[in-house]
């Protein structure tokens, strides 16, 4: 691959970072979380994102990769693109001004670069015209069940991350009665199962291996929902939404955020 072709991939990465990052760039809570959330949690989140980017690069990056070194390099590039895009846009939107303290500025940019860098990684897949679909399908098949779980995790994280910063997640969970929460949980499972069945995973036509309702349900639907709930818990904890909150309230929040997260898990295959 030449530098010219690489530059095209890079341009698509910037496009992806803008498109996927924009909803959160214009979300008020993201700005204050950038300086207010726990520093250790923010560091952990950025580190987790880097690991996720390496995995995503393997499945569908902005170039076809051959080794862990290349995946790591792609992850760094995607993160850099995310940081630069977030930084420029936050300055343009006057969310970041230069009379702010450095800690404030870096915190805001670092948090925004999480969705933006994932967007950069997906940019090639979504915006690229000539993508190597065959290689991608091969990889997804090779990776097997663990690969499926990783893709579900990535999808769940991306969608959950888009909702979790808003006050609405907490507000909705306060408004809901336990019956609402149970109904939403069942709905999440139903939708997840339907998506798994109709979209399928790993390039399989129709049902996943084994085929029976029960095995699909246990292997993909329940596992997927479990991943969605864990991802929701992680994101809510990162944003400090679970601090000093009763377990029952946390469970409610998990079901609320688990709804978009499980849809993200189910449709990860479409996006990634």
């Amino acid at each position, binding site marked *: *691959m030449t*530098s010219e072709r690489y530059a095209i991939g890079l341009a698509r990465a910037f496009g992806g970072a803008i498109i996927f990052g924009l909803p959160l760039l214009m979300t008020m809570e993201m700005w204050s979380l950038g*300086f207010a959330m726990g*520093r250790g949690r923010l560091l952990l989140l950025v580190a987790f994102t880097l690991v996720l980017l390496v995995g995503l690069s393997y499945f569908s990056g902005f170039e076809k990769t051959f080794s862990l070194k290349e995946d790591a390099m792609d992850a*760094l*590039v995607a*993160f*850099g693109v995310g940081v630069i895009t977030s930084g420029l846009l936050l300055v343009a939107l006057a969310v970041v001004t230069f009379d702010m303290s450095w*800690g404030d500025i*870096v915190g805001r940019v670092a948090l925004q670069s999480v969705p933006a860098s994932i967007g950069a990684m997906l940019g090639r897949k979504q915006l690229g015209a000539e993508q190597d679909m065959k290689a991608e399908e091969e990889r997804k098949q090779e990776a097997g069940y663990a690969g499926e779980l990783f893709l579900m995790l990535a999808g769940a994280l991306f969608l959950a991350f888009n909702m979790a910063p808003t006050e609405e997640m907490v507000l909705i969970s306060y408004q809901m009665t336990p019956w609402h929460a149970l109904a939403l949980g069942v709905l999440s499972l139903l939708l997840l199962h339907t998506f798994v069945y109709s979209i399928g995973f790993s390039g399989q036509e129709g049902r996943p291996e084994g085929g029976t309702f029960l095995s699909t349900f246990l292997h993909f639907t329940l596992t997927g929902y479990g991943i969605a709930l864990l991802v929701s818990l992680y994101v809510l904890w990162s944003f400090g939404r679970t601090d000093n909150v009763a377990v029952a309230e946390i469970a409610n929040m998990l079901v609320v955020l688990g709804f978009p997260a499980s849809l993200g898990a189910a449709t990860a295959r479409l996006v990634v």
Partner: protein
Amino acid sequence: MNRESKAKDIPRAKAEQQVPWLEWVASGIGLLLVLGIFGVIGWQAFNGASTPPAITVEVENVAPVEGGHRVLFRARNAAGGAAAQVEIEGNLSAAGTDPETSRVVLDYIPGHSERRGGLFFTRDPRSGVLSVRAMGFSEP
């Protein structure tokens, strides 16, 4: 003829495996940004990022405006922890008259940062004693 084209293909295939220079530059910049961000956030983490807010208010400017007087102030959070819903109250007292009070709420003041705001008074603050201070905050 056939051999010649084959010989040409080999170096081209090799070149395709090589990492383009732009990729080195791009990932180098990425690495620098990662290290920079980890450095700044990590530094904050070990320098009292969670110490409770301590807010001081400093009056910057007093000017007459239509309908009264405007006091511009600068609220500074000297500690690492961010404060939300910071209520700033200005109290103007002069001999022989009732004290006049004005309030404003600042949404956030991040750690080691400043936010500016203003208060309005009907009387001239320079004619009496003006005190502006932070009343309280909530954790974000």
